């Protein structure tokens, strides 16, 4: 168990209020130490909110393995009935995680303003996998899986008093923040959309940070960022997990300095990505000022349809988008294959990105939740299970669709509406989740693509894809141009070579 040796120092049930002077070094002269073996010479003491009978004790003396409140699960020790609040619980990831964590025994609450449904329908699109309203979703979760979820309709940005009240009521031990607008092209449509995305994301999250400070300072924030915050630097510099390691040095003027712990440069690739970078800085500062605890999750491009819970009943399915704004690339390719539409590579198709399947992303989030950060700790993880070029993905989807599902699939290159390097080096570092949190990817790309094709070729879903095929080709240009992209080339001959470059433990 990756978190067996963690102690109450990591646990959200600890009460450190007034007992620890977090800025003891250099910034405060007051010493709170109340050692049991002499004045100011001993160690700190704390109280446990779940086990008040312990009284004042040394919080480093009890490990998760020893504490009866932490129970064994396949993903590490997990706090019994851990109170988890999911912001954005109606979305692709939020709904999936809600069911996943409830099935593991967490007490799940969540909020949503259904904005995602609104954005997608505003663009004339729909989720190709039909999804139900929240009332019916909750009913089915209870009926089919026996899971209760405490939902409240709240807008994170515009209804702060309501969210504050809900937080005070639930006292979440971890807050998973999925409540942002997740689309680069949506933010690039025009000024109104760019403004909306940045306000919604940045100011929404800023409010959450203040609420956590005042309501639940010991809980942790697991916040969704994106690998796109780093961009793809043409120097080929590795994309470290948020910070430089200590042996990365800056050399200048015959002197050298360690860059250890400094945030690495960010090079966001759209106004949406800028909002995520701003979040990163706001969270980093909040942890510094108020010793909040947070994992900032740089997630690779997500894809897939499956977890055991969402597949348990059609009413429990999570959404899947194929439009240019909210469809991620593999989800789009599979939908295009089902529609008989040549798969759309932007530009050269040689762009390389990190990817992760839905189920593996759920595993990662669970593992992060089971090992909460320490007081004041801001940390970054790169959450992906492998990296591929977009062309490799298209070829993989084409191969499985044609050989396993008899779908004739072509690949086309279209004009690239984005401003980005089509051809670039890419060396992401993504060892923290496997090394420190015990993450083991379980879903090979080919398996998930197969499962997606199985679902999406069902007649009622195929029909929903065909209804929106006019939305497949992008028309949102980073330059501001308003026109559908032109096809540059149809690739007739596809070489089905094994090109997979996935994580190997």
């Amino acid at each position, binding site marked *: 168990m990756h978190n067996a040796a963690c102690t109450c*120092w990591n646990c959200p049930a600890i009460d450190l209020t007034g007992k*620890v*002077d*977090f800025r*003891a*070094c*250099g910034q405060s002269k007051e*010493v*709170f*130490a109340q*050692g049991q*073996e002499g004045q*100011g*010479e*001993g*160690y*700190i003491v704390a109280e446990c909110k779940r086990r008040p009978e312990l009284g004042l004790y040394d*919080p*480093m003396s009890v490990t998760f393995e020893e504490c009866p409140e932490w129970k064994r699960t396949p993903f590490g020790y997990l706090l019994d009935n851990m109170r988890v609040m999911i912001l954005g619980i109606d979305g692709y990831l939020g709904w999936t995680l809600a069911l996943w964590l409830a099935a593991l025994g967490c007490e799940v609450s969540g909020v949503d303003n259904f904005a995602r449904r609104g954005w997608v329908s505003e663009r004339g699109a729909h989720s190709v996998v039909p999804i139900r309203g929240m009332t019916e979703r909750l009913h089915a979760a209870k009926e089919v899986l026996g899971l209760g979820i405490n939902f409240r309709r709240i807008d994170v940005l515009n209804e702060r008093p309501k969210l504050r009240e809900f937080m005070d009521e639930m006292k979440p031990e971890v807050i998973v923040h999925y409540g942002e607008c997740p689309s680069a092209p949506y933010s690039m449509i025009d000024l109104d959309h760019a403004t909306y995305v940045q306000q919604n994301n940045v100011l929404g999250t800023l409010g959450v940070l203040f609420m956590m400070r005042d309501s639940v300072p010991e809980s942790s924030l697991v916040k969704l960022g994106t690998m796109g915050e780093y961009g793809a630097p043409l120097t080929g510099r590795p994309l470290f997990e948020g*910070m*430089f*390691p*200590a*042996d990365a*040095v800056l050399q200048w003027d015959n002197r*050298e*300095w*360690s*860059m*250890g*712990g*400094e*945030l690495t440069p960010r090079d966001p690739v759209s106004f949406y990505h800028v909002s995520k970078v701003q979040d990163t800085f706001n969270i980093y500062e909040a*942890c*510094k000022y108020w*010793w909040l605890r947070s994992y900032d999750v740089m997630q690779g491009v997500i894809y897939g349809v499956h977890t055991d819970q969402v597949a348990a009943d059609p009413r429990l399915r999570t959404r899947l988008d194929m439009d240019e704004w909210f469809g991620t690339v593999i989800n789009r390719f599979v939908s295009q294959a089902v529609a008989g539409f040549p798969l759309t590579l932007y530009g050269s198709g040689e762009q390389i990105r990190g990817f992760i399947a839905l189920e593996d992303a759920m595993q990662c989030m669970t593992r992060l939740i089971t090992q909460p*950060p*320490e*007081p*004041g*700790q*801001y*940390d970054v993880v790169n959450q992906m299970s492998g990296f591929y070029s977009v062309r490799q993905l298209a070829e993989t989807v084409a191969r499985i669709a044609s050989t396993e599902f008899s779908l004739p699939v072509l690949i086309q290159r279209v004009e690239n509406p984005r401003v980005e390097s089509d051809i670039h080096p890419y060396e992401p570092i993504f060892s923290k989740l496997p090394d420190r949190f015990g993450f083991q990817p379980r879903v090979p790309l080919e398996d998930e693509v197969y499962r997606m094709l199985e679902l999406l070729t069902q007649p009622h879903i195929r029909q929903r894809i065909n209804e929106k095929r006019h939305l497949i080709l992008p028309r949102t240009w980073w330059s501001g141009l308003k026109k559908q992209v032109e096809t540059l080339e149809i690739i007739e001959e596809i070489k089905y070579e094994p090109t997979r470059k996935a994580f190997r433990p």
Partner: protein
Amino acid sequence: MSRLVKLSARNFQEEVLESDVPVLVEFSASWCLPSRQQEPVLQQIAREFDGKLKVADLNVDRNPAPASRYRVMGCPTFVVFQAGEEVVRRTGAQSRARLLEMVQAVVNVD
């Protein structure tokens, strides 16, 4: 297997001040990003100087008494102790080369 000695207010006397070999102590903090990045470099140095130098880590939040006794004013602070006495100190993240410069005061680095 970690070669870093985890220090606390309880074992500081024994592990540092009464140690037979010199000790490189990192005063670190949970909230301090630079100190959290030092571990791989410290592990490496601990391995290389096994038996000649002890490398240890003390969390200042959890152990305020030793931190204030040694007037740690910023994180991370590195102090080399020999025979219970402070020999050299540096504050802020340190590269491998800079740590080796510090260690040179008490052990042969070649």
